[in-house]
């Protein structure tokens, strides 16, 4: 299975290595660097590489490469999924997954890696279980530790791993018992030049934050579960109950977790919350072009659209942009050729507009096609698919928990072709 792991930063330095079997020289990474060089963009590095004696499977997360070395046949997704789990765990422990934070906590990271894999086979990847064995650092604890010399390594076997609910640790206690659920939906869409929808779908996720004492057994039911077309669950959800009754019944892990991912059936027409009027053109004569974008609300269900942002990857030939925005600010990055227009709240009375001229390189033929617009937006208190949680029941514990559900709609991969 997974033989070794190298963490490589953006500029190509290996700053952490871990070997689960015998040690493999870091020179094996040269093949990776070669591919990295060839790929121009870090996103374009092929995830699976073949070298004479090893196979390299890598992921790119947070400007870091997690490069694993494999020697024999293994399902590549197995490795990729695991590497992402490592990144998730680091993020969960330290709040972010970056070179700096890993270097600062190198010992804890190393201990985590030691626990997560045994001889290349995943051992404990549940964050609840790991936290029992290796406690995440907090300011208070590090102060206490330095004063008393005690450690952040748990001295017990993970109790959760032995029970039939391995994702939950035993003996959880809170003074305030609360369970919050965020229903977050993302609209993936491609609109064409004229504004018609080429493709649109809604992907949703329910993020939960559950802090409940003891072993609560929760049941979450929906007003309209029929909307959900395809779902995937956290292992805690009882699939049988879902199949028969369309309710989510589960003993939750402690803390934050993703309860379910869902896809809204494609029969339902997807409401597109905004429309975009745009014209980008480059002139045949003279080194310049024109840009004019207006955005307005379309189907917002009476809510306001916030955090509007438009990102455009300009053609290489565009040297600079000289624009005026009626609302928000725009920036144009000269090296990456990315134009970002940060609009903020969308005001239906006064539609935001960005217009002006683009200067292009002299002597270079005008760009063949127009760049597409990537749109970002947020709508609070709305699940665009119309999904509604009807109730949350708790069994198995006596106390009354505080419950809350929040809805949020975001733009996922929302693209307007021009």
């Amino acid at each position, binding site marked *: 299975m997974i033989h070794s792991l190298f963490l490589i930063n953006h500029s190509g330095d290996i700053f952490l290595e871990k070997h689960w079997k015998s040690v493999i020289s870091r020179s094996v990474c040269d093949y990776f660097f070669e591919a990295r060089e060839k790929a121009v*963009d870090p996103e374009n590095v092929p995830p699976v590489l073949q070298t004479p004696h090893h196979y390299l499977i890598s992921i790119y997360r947070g400007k870091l490469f997690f490069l694993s070395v494999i020697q*024999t046949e293994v399902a590549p997704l197995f490795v990729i999924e695991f590497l992402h789990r490592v990144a998730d765990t680091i993020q969960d422990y330290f709040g972010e997954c970056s070179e700096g934070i890993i270097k600062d906590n190198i010992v804890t990271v190393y201990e985590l890696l030691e626990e997560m894999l045994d001889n290349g086979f995943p051992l404990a990847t549940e964050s609840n279980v790991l936290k029992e064995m290796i406690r995440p650092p907090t300011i208070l604890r590090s102060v206490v530790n330095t004063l008393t010399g005690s450690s952040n390594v748990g001295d017990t076997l993970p109790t959760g791993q032995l029970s039939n609910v391995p994702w939950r640790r035993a003996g959880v206690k809170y003074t305030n018992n609360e369970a919050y659920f965020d229903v977050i939906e993302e609209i993936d869409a491609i609109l064409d030049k004229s504004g018609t929808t080429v493709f649109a779908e809604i992907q949703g996720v329910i993020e939960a934050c559950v802090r409940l004492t003891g072993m609560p057994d929760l049941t979450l039911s929906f007003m309209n579960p029929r909307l959900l077309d395809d779902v995937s669950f956290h292992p805690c959800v009882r699939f049988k109950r879902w199949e028969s009754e369309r309710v989510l019944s589960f003993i939750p892990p402690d803390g934050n977790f993703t309860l379910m991912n869902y896809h809204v059936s494609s029969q339902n027409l997807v409401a597109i919350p905004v429309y975009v009027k745009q014209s980008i053109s480059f002139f045949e004569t003279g080194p310049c072009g024109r840009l004019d974008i207006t955005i307005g609300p379309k189907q917002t269900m009476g809510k306001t659209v916030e955090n509007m942002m438009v990102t455009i990857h300009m053609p290489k030939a565009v040297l600079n942009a000289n624009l005026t925005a009626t609302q928000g600010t725009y920036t144009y990055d000269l090296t990456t050729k990315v134009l970002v227009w940060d609009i903020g709240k969308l005001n239906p009375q006064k539609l935001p507009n960005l217009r002006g001229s683009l200067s292009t390189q002299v002597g270079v033929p005008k760009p063949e096609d127009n760049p597409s617009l990537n749109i970002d937006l947020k709508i609070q208190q709305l699940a665009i698919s119309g999904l509604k949680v009807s109730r949350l029941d708790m069994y198995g514990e006596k106390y009354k928990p505080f419950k809350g559900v929040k809805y949020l709609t975001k733009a996922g991969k929302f693209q307007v072709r021009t």
Partner: protein
Amino acid sequence: MAISFQLFFLELFYTTNAHTNFNSNSSSSCGSSQPAWLKYIYPLNSQKCTTLVLHLNMTSPTVYPLCVEQTTGVVVQPQLFSVPRNEDLKEMLESNKESLKLEAMKRIVGLIAKGKNSSELFPAVVKNVASKNIELKKLVYVYLVRYAEEQQDLALLSIRLFSVSLALRVLSSIRVPIIVPIMMLAIKEAAADLSPYVRKTSAHAIQKLYSLDPDQKEQLIEVIEKLLKDKSTLVAGSVVMAFEEVCPDRIDLIHKNYRKLCNLLVDVEEWGQVVIISMLTRYARTQFTSPWTEGATFDENNEKTFYDSDSEEKKEQTEAKPYIMDPDHRLLLRNTKPLLQSRNTAVVMSVAQLYWHLAPKHEVNIVTKSLVRLLRSHREVQFIVLQNIATMSIQRKGMFEPFMKSFYVRSTDATHIKTLKLEILTNLANEANISTILREFQTYVKSQDKAFAAATIQAIGRCATNISEVTDTCLNGLVLLLSNRDETVVAESVVVIKKLLQTQPTQHSEIIKHMAKLFDNITVPMARASILWLMGEYCERVPKIAPDVLRKMAKTFTAEEDIVKLQIVNLAAKLYLTNSKQTKLLTQYILNLGKYDQNYDIRDRTRFIRQLIVPNEKSGALNKYARRILLAPKPAPVLESAFKDRDRFQLGTLSHSINSKATGYQELSDWPAVAPDQSVRNVEVIEPVRNPSSSHTPYHKSDSESEEESSEESEKTSTDSGKSSSGSENSSSESESEQKKKKKTKKAPQKKSKPTAVTTPSFGPVKTYELLHHMTGKGLSAKYHFPRQPCLYEPSMVAVQVILTNSSDHSLEEIHIGERSPAGLNIHCFNTIERLEPEASVTVSMGIDFSDSTQAANFQLCTKENQFSVSIQPAVGELLMPSTMTEQDFTKEQGKLLGMNETSATITMATANTSSQAISKQVLSVANVGVVSSSQNNFHRFAGRTVSSGALVLVSLELKESSSALLTINTEKSVMASMLLRDLKQALTQA
């Protein structure tokens, strides 16, 4: 190119340290015998491997900076790493303060993580292995595991220190051959441990020991065999992993555990699921016959044939009967299906490949949605999933066609993702959707990513050849692209048009003319060559233009690229043959130029062409055929997918991903023409009987635990079979049962060998009752017991196993079940046993619906000659099946069943029965219930459901002082409650 320098501080010792390392992590590279003149050849991680040869004349340890040219463009600060610091660490490690030691260890682990060498600290570190501080200990382990291989002697010393607390995981991670025997012992011991966690660790250790010393294979296989029997979900994944690593070819070990693994699968941790599924895929391909046969029938409800059809498969093959899926095959498919909803993408993918490789064709579709869902995941996941979809979509367009839009490309996708999506879209194209796809392609062609645009043009070409309706449209579209500004786009279009014209050699002279006009503006050699080739090939269609093109080319010949030159020579030759009047001189000129070209390919070609086309005395018979050689009609190139032959690899594997066989890849075998004996898997039915004879019984804790687990499992299967087998009774057609009878004739002798193992039930809860004594039965004797398995025929039935023995001196024929009373009694009979030889016995399973009452089921057991009335009277405890619930659930449910539904009694316990194990044992011997884990010591709880109606039966036992106890039963079936109470009371009070 930016040139920068990276500084490397190489620390070199000339002392006699046996393991001098660079800050590389390779194991030692030079022995002590080498002189201080050290020659290191050390590849650095720059793009070009720079070889360094150092000549150092050293008198003292020194730090030498080295400058290495590197192309990454970053200046790295030299990291100071020098001797004094390590001395420092050594001092800290030898101090008395825990905190100092801990600090030192942390720094050392930091060094390891960075790949720095700290092996000289080994002695100092190892001393701390016996420390009481758990974190310190863990860090020492980390260090030990990293360096043990290099410092074997010292590592051995340390083993003695920590073997007290025998941490198998660390022990097994130390790759020192000498400890193999110790490891072997430890593994064997751990494999029989009470805690499933420890058993899991031992499964992991098996692989490590195997990689350390493959000679131990045989012994390890024994351990694997034992662990495979384990019922804990925790162990299953790890042991299958070990199996895959050590002895993947020992398929025979799986047989007996096959059904158990299938049933446990849902509860195994996600990584284990992936491994088990891939193993089961291989297993199934060797054990079942292909469900892909023509005219196959896919009967969901054929669980009927579960036990009584050993040779069925064989029969079917020979008689070419409609295909009936092996129930075990179905079991696998059914139990893996829920895993499509897993959050783990690897699990979803492995289920998808299982369905792809094992399921009947029309069932594969259920994986589509889940695979498409994975496309929302990380970039790397998308890449792998798209690769697999690309392979699948070649064979099965229909699967992904409804999801076509999910493969639309976004400008933000990575290039390799875009190309894969394009590949899939092309595969999915058919007459109905081609216009949509082409419209989509039009936007892609304009993409700024030119490599992608080129790939799109290729894709258009493929669509055009595959779907004849759109060939013209595509061709026109491509011709329009010829006036594109971008060179690569034009070049690619030319190449594709060339291929298209070849497949469609009709009237396309317009296009060729158009291309000839554009020729001057095209600079990409491949495109130029393609146009020239087209001119030559179809020179008779463009008789005026071709010679003119040749004239132009003659002028620029010397400046052209090699492939273009070759095509110029070709064109010249072809024109010479068709139109020698106009082109004779030009051809001569070109051939002369070619004769003196620098490239020998071109010189060769020129010489060859000259001999072929220009008649002279030397050229022989070939000359006559020159025209036929050069202007022969050429087969059109086939434009096909790059994923065409990927299906030779199992989907989802690394080999599939890299399109070449990876080390350790195991070929998926073809379906056997005749299924191997399927009775080998039948063991599970009588497993409770067998279990105690296997060696890991002596402890009681795991007893109750495995009970619990199996009950969980059985609940699952019962609901499952409830779903699928309902109505199987009615649906089985006449012909089918007849057919089965025929098979029986062959089967009976096979069965003979088995029962010997069955007839000795020694396991506590399983009691055997007499059904028919051989005296009254004229030689036929029958015994029965309740296997406590969920009944496979109908969930409301109680499974009964009957052992029929022939103690007479002649064979008995046609043993079957005759009349039954009460008349409405619902019995699932065993199939008629055609013949039972003297002294032979056979075990058959029946299902009886007792409707939750202890009323006896009376029926007649018939042979050919006689009929015997027999009756089965179930003990009340056998009418239950275990139910798993948490303690909270239990108390909650108990709260609902108070008053009338509660029956209780105070009993005086026999002194032998006061331990919790004894209580569980006694209760379980009486009733088929599940143990509910309890947080209080003096409370014991058991839960079950009645088989027929599914009513809850909750048993709780509260121990009071001086061996008295309060036994309470809560259930709405009050009659059962009182009977159960009586039985339990008896069991618990007797010694």
